[in-house]
């Protein structure tokens, strides 16, 4: 919170002339200065400023589900409006046959949306399970993947993979995520 000039002046005056202020005023000022900051919030601010990875995965899973549900709902509403006003074609009307013949695989939620910028060699994994990210990276760097901890296989991440960076650098970036600990030894990536 940004303070006003007057507040700052009061603080400096209280330091310069403590004898001019009552014990009550002084104690109130000390309590304010000793207020415990929200370290978690400060870390998230710092991290979002310096990390290209999303803080989404750090949310409790129920909140992740809620965020995804709201996101899907909103995109559905936006799509419906766009179809109604004629900005977008109605893909459901045109592809009815395809939906009827679709396999069960296509009915499972496919939140993953990975894109690749050919020019910058940056591949963006948007809400993709860790196992898929590591499989793709392992293939590219010529190593194998093993999961000691199966629980994290399906943790979904937003991650920007710059193919021009080393595998070690990418492991360091991924290890910055909570609950993810990857080690590379003898061409084997082990997720602990």
């Amino acid at each position, binding site marked *: 919170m940004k303070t006003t000039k007057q507040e700052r002046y009061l*603080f400096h005056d*209280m330091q310069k002339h403590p004898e001019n202020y009552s014990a009550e005023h002084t104690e109130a000022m000390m309590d304010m200065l000793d207020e415990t900051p929200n370290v978690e919030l400060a870390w998230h*601010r710092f991290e979002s400023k310096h990390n290209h990875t999303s803080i989404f995965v750090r949310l409790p899973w129920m909140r992740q589900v809620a965020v995804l549900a709201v996101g899907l709902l909103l995109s559905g509403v936006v799509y419906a409006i766009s179809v109604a006003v004629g900005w977008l074609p109605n893909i459901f009307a045109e592809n009815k046959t395809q939906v009827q013949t679709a396999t069960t695989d296509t009915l499972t939620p496919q939140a993953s949306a990975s894109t690749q910028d050919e020019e910058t060699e940056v591949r963006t994994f948007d809400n993709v399970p860790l196992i898929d990210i590591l499989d793709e990276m392992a293939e590219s760097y010529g190593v194998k993947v093993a999961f000691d901890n199966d629980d994290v296989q399906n943790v979904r991440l937003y991650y920007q993979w710059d193919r021009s960076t080393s595998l070690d650098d990418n492991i360091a970036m991924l290890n910055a995520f909570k609950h993810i600990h990857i080690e590379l030894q003898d061409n084997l990536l082990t997720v602990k």
Partner: protein
Amino acid sequence: MKRKEIERLFRQHYAKMYRVARTLLYDGQESEDVVSDIFENLLNGKTVLLPKDEEAYLMTSVRNMCFKRLRHEEVKRNSQSLIAMEQEDEDEDERLADIIEFVVAHLSAQEQRIFHLRFTDGNSYEEIALSEGISKVAVWKHISHLINEIKNHFYPHTL
């Protein structure tokens, strides 16, 4: 320094560093910026810290950065040019190294202890009062006195 290491240091030391910054700068946002800048420097730089030196390094850094900000404010208030400010910056590091010497030479034994309790260990006013067996208001007066002494000596034109 590795990101994971930065996160550990941040979570472990942020609250105390922020407290020191607020004692000198008062402004919450400015204090947050100072502490974040220190971790940013660690993240982007090549500094390696030994575990035993971590806390001392971080607390000294926050104290020094706050004094630098106060110095910049002073220069701005006196309408000195930016070039002058940059030139003064070179002398600033030496000046900051002298603060501890000044504390030892010019402050009473009790104020030296209080200085370290607040600015090296990041203790709260209440913790210092308990440790010294004096009232919180007395702690405030001691800290105010020692800050005034430091400012008058090193930054005579600061508010």
